[in-house]
């Protein structure tokens, strides 16, 4: 079974994770900085310049979004990079004419609860599958792993029927329930918990710790970086989720931010000064959070990406 071999292959990486080493910082031992003559320096300068231009190209849509969002309606098609008459009215109009605050709150609530739930249950399941030898463990693991192959789109129709049946449509639980435990997270946490030494667990057992206390007090603190990465991934995924919240919500008050923005923008009749203000309101909070935690977020993406 390939998961076994992947697990073995992952073992050295887990040490790095447990010691908190930055897998990207490890690359400091590159062959690059050999000082060198003017040709080398010129090439290096050119590389910095080209990558900077490319990088500015990458973030330019956000710059353009902000510029457009502070223009007066009559200036929007002038396409100047400097707004002739900057204004925050568009933001005020969006905030006044939509349930933005409510949508923001909905997204925050749904993404937060889902993240806490995933962090807890995926850790628990991952730990159990990594550290207990019980009849049926392999079957359960394969069962959970196999769900990764089923695309969400295949499940939305049955989920929708379930939601109708149990009257979950247009409720927080209705938006959340498909995501409160994640198969990818179970797989990921199992990989990381396999790196926790068995001696540690046995020693705690001899000290009379209960199994849950061993999990909670000994195993979990050792894989904190992995749990943090899983949390980041889960939060971002749920914050930006679109297709399921679009299907399961009905009333305006229950929409999540992406769904609300989508409806507002398509009903705004090409008033792009308002649409850009709405897009900015949806992206800027995420951008701020990302700027603050960028090191951890990028590290987390690497961790989860490489294990998955």
């Amino acid at each position: 079974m390939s998961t076994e071999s992947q697990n073995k292959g992952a073992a050295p990486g887990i040490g790095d994770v447990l010691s908190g080493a930055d897998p990207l910082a490890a690359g400091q031992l590159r062959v690059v900085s050999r000082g060198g003559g003017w040709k080398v320096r010129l090439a290096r300068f050119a590389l910095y310049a080209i990558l900077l231009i490319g990088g500015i190209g990458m973030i330019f849509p956000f710059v353009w979004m902000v510029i457009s969002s502070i223009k007066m309606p009559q200036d929007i098609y002038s396409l100047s990079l400097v707004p002739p008459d900057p204004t925050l009215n568009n933001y005020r109009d969006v905030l006044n004419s939509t349930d933005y605050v409510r949508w923001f709150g909905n997204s925050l609530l749904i993404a937060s609860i889902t993240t806490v739930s995933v962090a807890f249950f995926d850790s628990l399941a991952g730990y159990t599958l990594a550290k207990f030898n019980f009849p049926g463990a392999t079957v359960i693991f394969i069962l959970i792993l196999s769900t990764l192959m089923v695309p969400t789109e295949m499940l939305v129709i049955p989920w929708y029927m379930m939601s109708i049946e149990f009257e979950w449509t247009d409720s927080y639980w209705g938006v959340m329930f498909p995501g409160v435990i994640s198969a990818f997270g179970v797989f990921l946490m199992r990989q990381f918990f396999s790196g926790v030494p068995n001696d540690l667990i046995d020693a705690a057992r001899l000290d009379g710790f209960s199994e849950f206390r061993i999990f909670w007090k000994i195993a979990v603190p050792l894989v904190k970086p992995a749990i943090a990465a899983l949390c980041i991934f889960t939060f971002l995924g749920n914050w930006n989720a679109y297709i399921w919240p679009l299907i399961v919500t009905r009333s305006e008050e229950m929409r999540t931010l992406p769904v609300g923005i989508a409806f507002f923008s398509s009903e705004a009749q090409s008033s792009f000064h308002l649409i850009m203000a709405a897009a900015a309101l949806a992206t800027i909070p995420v951008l701020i959070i990302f700027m603050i935690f960028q090191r951890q977020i990028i590290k987390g993406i690497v961790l989860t990406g490489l294990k998955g």
Partner: protein
Amino acid sequence: MLLTLERRRWLWAYAFILIPLLFFLAIRIGPAFYAFWVSLHQWDPIALQRPFIGLDNFSAMQDDPVFWKAFRNTWLYVIIGVPVSLSISLLIALGLQRLVRYVGFYRVLYFVPYVTSLVAVGWVWRWMYMPNGLFNDALSRIAIGPFQWLGSPDTALYSILIMTIWQGLGFQIIIFLAGLESIPVVYQEAAAIDGASNWQRFLGVTIPLLNPTLVFLTVTGVINYLQVFTQIRTMSSAGTGGPLNSTISLVLYVYQQAFQQLPSKMGYASAITVVLFLMILAITLVQLKLFSRKNNEY
């Protein structure tokens, strides 16, 4: 009866795994089988009768031009999007790897689009693609265009594709960077001492050692592109996959069939998701095969 120590531990394990297991059975595995079941019916949620029609939904696809359009488009997204985005991101990662200073700053620049909502950035791009928008304005200064972008069946799919590639680059770059860092420097040095040129070192050392990363990014890329939905619903005219169905994808078509039109054709939509599932299954199996062959070599 006294429980042995081992059995007591089993009980703990079952208690720990119970809720996740029930969740996966009820929310993932059960519904997956149910989708197969629905795909064998003519299924309108508000109709009283939901007759069993065998494989009729699947044979109906053969004569459905929109299905084939969506099928073709979806594979166009995959076949162009995956190689192009992987090439660009590998190139950028190779450049970023050579930087010694401001590495974090550069990484952030390229990574930002990946964390933002597709709906919001989709609208930003839609605004830039407007006939009298930024792109045409900029291109007209160097006497190119104007283009219809999202407005013409010839260019709309590619316009959406450009935005999709832009949005996903950051993730691929970060994973490529991690893969490149894991290649031991000694291999590169040994090849350099043997007189290999930069290009030879790239083809002979970097690419083979980067193989696991390439496989991983290709598979996740193919699966993601197979499921494109949000950007098409956001950027195509009226969100319907237009103009003239030139941008419609399988997932968008499923959404329309099941949730947008009356009478709702949930059976037919489920049958299309089954086709999608089979394609993803095939790709996953190929990946498993590639990975296990890799492991046997060591």
